[in-house]
C-alpha cells in the first residue's frame, strides 16, 4: 500500500471516529438537556411573601404552634432576652431554620461542574445575622456525628421530580423561635422547595429529639424578583454590651413574668402559649374558653 492509500485509510478511520464521537456527544447532550429540564430552576432572587407571621417574636412568651416537649418548654420559659448581652450567646438566635422563619428573601445561586454542567451545589446567601447555607448536590455524605457543628449546619440535596429536597444536620444549638424556644445540636431539618410559576415554597420539617415532642412543620412562600438581591450579609459580630453578672440571665420556668401576656392581650390559652403539642390540632378548639375570642 502506498503512502497516499495509507493516508486515505487513516483519514477515513479518523473521520468515522470523529463523526461517531460527535453523534454520541450530541445525543448525550440531548439526554442531559432532558434531565435538566425535568427539574426546576430555583436560582435567582426570591422576595418573601409575608402574609404569615412565622417569626412569632412579638411577645416574650409566644410558643404557639411549636410542639415542645416538657424539657423544651422548661428551657423556653427560663429564657431571658438579656442573654443576648452575653458575647457567647449573641449569634445563637439564627440557625438554619431561619431560612423560612425570618423576614428575609432568598438569594440562591448554583455552582456547576465546568465539564459536565451538572450542579455541584446551591447556595442560599446570607442575610444579616443568618449565615449562608450550601446545599451539596454531588452525593457527598454527611460528616461524622463528631464533626463540627455550625450555625448553618451541613446540607445535602437531591431532586425528587420537580421538588428539591434537602436535609440539614450538624447545626449548633440555637432557637426554634428566637424568643427562647430551644433547638438542640441534634436537630435536623428536611426542606422541600416547590416552585409554582414565580412562587417558590419552602416547607421545612424540623425534628429535635431533645426539645420537640413531634416533627414541627413550617412553610413559607417567596416570589421571584427581577431586582437582584445581595448574595452576602454582614456576619454576626459579637460585641461587649456590658456585664450581665455572674450567671446567665434567666427566669425560673414557673415564674416567667410574661407567661400570661398572650392570654391577656389576645385571649390565647396558656397551654397554647407555652407550646403544648395537643394545641396544634383542631380538637383543641373545644377546650378554648368561649370568653377568649374577639374583643
Amino acid at each position: 500500500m502506498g503512502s497516499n492509500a495509507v493516508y486515505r485509510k487513516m483519514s477515513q478511520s479518523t473521520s468515522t471516529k470523529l463523526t461517531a464521537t460527535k453523534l454520541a456527544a450530541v445525543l448525550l447532550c440531548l439526554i442531559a438537556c432532558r434531565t435538566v429540564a425535568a427539574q426546576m430552576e430555583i436560582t435567582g432572587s426570591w422576595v418573601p411573601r409575608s402574609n404569615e407571621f412565622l417569626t412569632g417574636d412579638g411577645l416574650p412568651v409566644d410558643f404557639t404552634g411549636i410542639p415542645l416537649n416538657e424539657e423544651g418548654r422548661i428551657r423556653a420559659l427560663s429564657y431571658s432576652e438579656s442573654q443576648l448581652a452575653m458575647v457567647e450567646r449573641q449569634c445563637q438566635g439564627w440557625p438554619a431554620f431561619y431560612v423560612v422563619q425570618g423576614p428575609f428573601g432568598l438569594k440562591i445561586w448554583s455552582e456547576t461542574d465546568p465539564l459536565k454542567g451538572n450542579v455541584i451545589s446551591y447556595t442560599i446567601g446570607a442575610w444579616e445575622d443568618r449565615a449562608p447555607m450550601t446545599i451539596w448536590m454531588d452525593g457527598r455524605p454527611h460528616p461524622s456525628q463528631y464533626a463540627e457543628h455550625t450555625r448553618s449546619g451541613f446540607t445535602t440535596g437531591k431532586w425528587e421530580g420537580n421538588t428539591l429536597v434537602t436535609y440539614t444536620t450538624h447545626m449548633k444549638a440555637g432557637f426554634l423561635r428566637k424568643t427562647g424556644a430551644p433547638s438542640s445540636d441534634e436537630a435536623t431539618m428536611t426542606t422541600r422547595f416547590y416552585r409554582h410559576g414565580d412562587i417558590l415554597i419552602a416547607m421545612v420539617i424540623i425534628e429535635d429529639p431533645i426539645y420537640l415532642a413531634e416533627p414541627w412543620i413550617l412553610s413559607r412562600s417567596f416570589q421571584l424578583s427581577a431586582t437582584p438581591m445581595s448574595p452576602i450579609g454582614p456576619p454576626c459580630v459579637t460585641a461587649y454590651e456590658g456585664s450581665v453578672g455572674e450567671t446567665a440571665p434567666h427566669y425560673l420556668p414557673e415564674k416567667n413574668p410574661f407567661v400570661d401576656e398572650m392570654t391577656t392581650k389576645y385571649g390565647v390559652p396558656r397551654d397554647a402559649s407555652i407550646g403544648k403539642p395537643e394545641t396544634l390540632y383542631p380538637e383543641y378548639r373545644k377546650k378554648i374558653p368561649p370568653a377568649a375570642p374577639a374583643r
Partner: protein
Amino acid sequence: MRVLLVATVVTLSSVALLQRAAGQERAPAAAAGTPKTSAPMDLTGYWVAHVSEDWRFRMITPPKGDYTRVPLTEQARKIADAWDPAADEASGLQCKAYGAAAIMRMPSRFHITWQDDNTLRVDSDFGMQTRLFHFNASPSPPGERTWQGYSNAEWQKPASLKVATTNMRSGYLRKNGAPYSENAAVTEYFDMAPLPGGGQVLLVTTIVDDPQYLQGLYIVTSQFKKEADGSKWDPTPCTAK
C-alpha cells in the same frame, strides 16, 4: 464504519433507557384515562390541619381590627373595622369565613374523595363545607355564587394539583371580618411529601387575588397530616363568632 454503527446503537439504546426512566417519573399524569385513574398522587383520605403558624389568627377569632399581614385596601379596612358577628349570624352569613379563599386555613379536618371520575370532593368538618374540584370542565363557572365558588382542577407534572376557583360569594380571609370580594380569584396548589417516621404531609398553597379588597396577592401555605381513618371527624356548623 463499525465504530460509527456501535456508537449509534449504544447511544440510542441509552437514550431509550433514560427516556423510559424519565417517563416512569412522569408517566402517571401522562397516561391516558380519567383524571381519577391518571392521578399522579393519591389525595384521598382524612387530613388534619397542623396549626404551626398563625395560631392566634386561626385557632381563635382575632380581635376586631387585627388584620395584620393581610394587605387590605382602605375600603376593605373600613369593612373589617365594622365587623359585626352577631349581625352576620342574624343574616344567615355565619359561613363567611369558611369560603374557598379561607377554608383551607381553618383548624379543620378534610375528607378528600372522588365524587366521580372527573370530580374531586373535599369536605371539611369545621363549618361542614363541601368543595368540588372539576377536571376537564368548562372554564366559565356556571350558576349562582356560593361560598366555595366553582373550581377547575388540573394535574400538573410530575405530581401536583392546581385548582382555580372563582364565582364565590364575598367572604372573610380571617374570622374577624377581613374581607374578600366576590370578584376574588383563588389559585391553589396541592403538594404531598412523606413525613419522617411514616405518614404523609399535604401542603396547600393558597393565592388570593382580589383587586377590589387587596392591595396585592395574599399567599398562605398550610400543612396537613394524613390520618388513618375518620375516627376524629367532628362535623361542626359554621359560626360567625
